[in-house]
């Protein structure tokens, strides 16, 4: 009988420990989630201070590169990247640069057009760096008179 009681007590103890463990791991995961969504715990502090803080964090990471891509602009990390970022993404998005495929001559013409009509500054020696970056990393693709259809997401059409 004593053995049985002891056994039951042990079970109860184990149960309690398990409940505690569940409770604490739940608490920990809530805290973790919170930290992930609001790392500065700004909800508890002054909003303005929190904003300034995250601004500095952003500034530190503004030229972060991941998998060979400059995160802020989407431009490929290659020789001349920062020169392109600094001169070509002030007025318009880098998306406009990436989607346009031109050779050296046409980029130079485009730069001249931007200088004449869009207030682009004199690029000096940087012009060659920029154009080289563009023609190397974003060369024109031959399309002919019509391309094949590509990137088709096949799906079953219900009647």
């Amino acid at each position, binding site marked *: 009988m004593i053995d049985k009681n002891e056994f039951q007590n042990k079970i109860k103890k184990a149960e309690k420990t398990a409940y505690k463990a569940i409770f604490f791991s739940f608490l920990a995961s809530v805290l973790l989630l919170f930290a992930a969504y609001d790392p500065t715990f700004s909800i508890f502090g002054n909003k303005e201070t929190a904003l300034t803080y995250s601004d500095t964090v952003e500034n530190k990471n503004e030229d972060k590169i991941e998998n060979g891509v400059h995160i802020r602009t989407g431009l490929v990390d290659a020789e001349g990247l920062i020169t392109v970022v600094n001169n070509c993404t002030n007025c*318009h998005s880098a*998306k406009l640069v990436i*989607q*346009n495929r031109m050779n050296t001559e046409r980029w130079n013409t485009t730069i001249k057009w931007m200088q004449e009509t869009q207030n682009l500054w004199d690029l000096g020696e940087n012009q060659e760096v920029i154009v080289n970056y563009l023609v190397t990393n974003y060369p024109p693709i031959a*399309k002919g008179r*019509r391309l094949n259809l590509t990137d088709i997401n096949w*799906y*079953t059409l219900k009647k």
Partner: protein
Amino acid sequence: MKRRSFVKKTVLSSFAAIIGTELIFGANMMEGYTPLALQEPNPFKLFSKNKEMLVLNDKPWNIEAQAHLLDDKVTPNSSMFIRNNGKIPEEINPETWTLTIDGEAVKNKKTYTLADLKSTFKQHTYQLTLECGGNGRSEFDPPAKGNQWTIGAVHCASWTGIRLRDILEDAGIKSNAVYIGYHAVDAHLSGDPSKEPISRGCPMSKALQDETILAFQMNGEAIPLAHGYPLRLIAGGWPASVSGKWLNRISIRDKVHDGTKMMGTAYRVPKNPVAPGEKVKDEDMGIIESMPVKSLITYPKTGATLKENQPLEIRGHAWAGELEVEKMEYSIDFGATWTTCLVEKPANRLAWQHFSASINFPKKGYYEIWAKAIDSNNIAQPMLLPGWNPKGYLNNACHRIAIKVV
């Protein structure tokens, strides 16, 4: 910070228009409170667009639809492409907004408030097709400079406003009038206040058409901010850049308007055909007027897989600039044979027309459905790219979708 002060200077009534939905508790909103919508970094939420819209550019904002998003007969805001040359204006007060009619060929320079426009002139509603002159640019080889639109820079919404003719005649048109040119409040990307991002127009003959209107409503509601709130010129069937947004001035000119993007190569194509990549002098370029005949298959979405013997219902829209679409055909064998589709009459002149067909595929395999519209002058869409031009305008090559029968 500018965004925050924006709301303080804007009346709530205009707010619903800007975010595209109604603010139910608008009246109870605290003073100084900035609704989240305007700080929204997500363009789909910011402009109330479908998540499948494609963002080509975020500075300035340029967003296009995909064919299957344009299935509605009247395009809802959620599927309408956005094309901007400059920055979208942020501080608009409809109470103090005015439109001035001036220029060398105006009899009396006149300024109207929005309330004047709405109360003085008769209002009209038309469904009007607006297509970006550069829609389809991405297919040109050698590539043309600019936003690389695929097929989604077209829409046909319902617009309500007053006829441009009525207000021009109210101010008085001199006999030497040639062209109108619009001016608006959007800011140049460089931030230079002396520069206009775009200031285009059209010849008097287009300006005086019944369907050329100054709109203050789109699909029965105030025009969303990105589409020109509070006042937009709508000139259906012409490059959508003629339909200027956020207008505060229209000049009646005694010559062809010479505003930004009227000159050089902007919205112009070679007067005579050129070889791909050929250099064209500015003086050999002519202003685009009516857009060419074109069509889109909006159902099904490309990539549909069907069972053998399962018939396929297709549908879509066709339009032809100033003209009407007379005939619509489809091919499932790359143009070897063509079958006529049913094509409806337009809701009004310059509205796109709906077509439909039921297709039976002869055997299993990979197919493409190609759609071809033919206009009232018997001009058809080409299957290949039309004539190359330096800026990549007017690509009206047949639209096609991929189908598999298994």
